């Protein structure tokens, strides 16, 4: 069972983790992406996220399906924020339950890496003296 979600409101980490609980699994790996207070030594006030909703949800669902096929994941949750997220706030949560430990790490790391390159979500860094759309580094 997958749980895929794009939300204007704060992500509920305990609920997300509970959603992937599966008695056939011994491992859950969770990645929580949070808003850092600096980028390239410059103070960040917050991040503003924008998404192409329909496509982002489809791409997130596709990542979840891939984790089930390639890593035998029993359950996957991918939740991402839209709108403004303050410093320290949670932008993304990915949780993957697998029978064994190694697969949970591999699958979760693949999921966040793929999300960052394929899912149509954009973030703008808001500074005291300006703002800039983040361009991913190669």
């Amino acid at each position, binding site marked *: 069972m997958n749980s895929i979600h794009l939300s204007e409101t704060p992500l509920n980490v305990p609920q997300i983790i509970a959603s992937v609980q599966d008695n056939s699994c011994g491992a859950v790996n969770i990645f929580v*992406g949070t808003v850092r207070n600096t980028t390239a030594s410059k103070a960040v006030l917050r991040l503003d996220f*924008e*998404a*192409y909703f329909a496509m982002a949800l489809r791409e997130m669902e596709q990542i979840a399906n891939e984790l089930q096929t390639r890593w035998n994941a029993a359950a996957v949750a991918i939740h*991402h924020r839209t709108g403004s997220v303050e410093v320290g706030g949670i932008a*993304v949560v990915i949780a993957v339950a697998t029978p064994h430990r190694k697969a949970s790490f591999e699958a979760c790391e693949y999921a*966040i890496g793929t999300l*960052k390159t394929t899912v149509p979500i*954009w973030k703008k860094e808001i500074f005291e003296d300006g703002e800039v759309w983040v361009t991913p580094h190669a």
Partner: protein
Amino acid sequence: MTISITVKFFALGRELIGKSAVTLDVEEGISVEQVLTRLQAEYPSFAKLPSFVTAVNTRYADKTIVLKNNDELAIIPPVSGG
């Protein structure tokens, strides 16, 4: 014969164009590439978008693709979620 397509803009693209979507009447048989050419003519600021890919009906799509009536073409600047 003309068909109607919607073009969606996001992030920097949306800010440069000043719109999140436009609906265009275009000739049947038009390709994604030809729509982009028309957008560049109508919105000179669109040329300032340094890099983007395209999607048709929420799937990444090649610029040679021919559009159908009611298709949704999206201009996707480099994504930066996570």
